[in-house]
C-alpha cells in the first residue's frame, strides 16, 4: 500500500514537473479521464491474438518436423 502510494506520488510529481517544463500540447485530457486505457486494451488484445497465432504455428511445425 505504502509502496504504491509512493510510486503514484513520484509518477504524478514527474508528470506535473514535466507539464511545467514545457507547454506543448499533449493528450493530457485523454490520460486524466482514463480513455487511454481503451487504446491500451485494444492494443493488448491484438498483441495477444498475434502471439497466440505464432505459438500455435510453432507447435504445428514442431509436430510436422517430428513426423517427417
Amino acid at each position: 500500500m505504502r509502496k504504491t502510494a509512493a510510486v503514484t506520488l513520484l509518477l504524478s510529481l514527474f508528470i506535473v514537473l514535466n507539464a511545467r517544463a514545457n507547454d506543448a500540447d499533449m493528450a493530457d485530457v485523454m490520460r486524466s479521464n482514463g480513455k487511454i486505457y481503451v487504446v491500451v486494451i485494444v492494443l493488448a488484445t491484438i498483441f495477444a491474438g498475434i502471439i497466440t497465432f505464432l505459438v500455435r504455428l510453432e507447435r504445428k511445425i514442431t509436430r510436422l518436423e517430428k513426423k517427417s
Partner: protein
Amino acid sequence: MAGDSSMSKGLQGFIDSQMRLWWWKVLCVACLAFATIGGMLLPVPRLNILNETIRNLYYHVPMWITMMMLYMAGFAYSIIYLRTGKLKDDIFAYQLTATGIAFSVFGMITGMEWAKYTWGEAWSNDPKQLGTALSMLIYFAYLVLRNGMKDEEKRAKISAVYNIFAFALLIPLIWILPRMVDSLHPGNGGNPAFKSYDRDFSMTIVLYPAFIGWILMGFWIASICIRTNMVRYKQENRYQYDIEKNSANA
C-alpha cells in the same frame, strides 16, 4: 580457411540448437508486452510539433533495427552457403532476408504515416527516405531474381552472390549517405537517429526493450518460415537431404 569454417559452424550450431527453444520467445513476448503497453502509458518528453506522436518512436524505429538484424543474418548465411553449397543454408539466407524485407515495408509505411502528420508530407525526399527506398528496390529485385530461376542450385548460388552485394550497398545507403547531408530525421547531419532522445531516461526504458522484443519477433517469424521450408525440402529432396545431413555429421 579452417578458422572461418569452424566459425560458421559455431554460428550455425548455435542457431540450430536455439531455434526450437522457447526461452527467447518468452523473452520476446515479455519485452514486447512491456514496450507496447508501456509505450502508451509511460511519460514522454513534451515536444512541439511531435506532441504525443513521439511515441511512434517505440514502434517505427524497431522495424528498421529488426530489418537490419535480419538482413545481417541473411548476409551471413549467404556467405555460409557459398562456402558449404548446402541448400539448407540457402533456405536460411532467403527466409531471413525475406522477413527483413517485410519489416522494411512496415518501417517505410509507418514512417510515411508519421511523416504525413509531423513533416507535412508522406514523402518529402528526405535523404534517409531516398536511401531506404533505393535499398528496398534492391532487395525487391532479390525476390524477383529468385523467383525467376527454376534450377535450385543455380538460384541459390546467384541469389547468394546478389544478396552479398545488396547488403554491401545497404550500408552506405542507410548508414552513411543520409548522415552526410541535412535530414528531417532527428540528429540531422551526423548523429544516429535515436541518440537525441537517449538523454531522456523515460524514453530509453521503453525503447530498448522494444528493440530487443522486435528483433526477437523478427527472428521468431523467420524461424517459422525456415522450418516450414526445411520440412518441405526434406520431403521433396529426400536423397539430397540425406547426403547433406551425413556430410554435416562427418
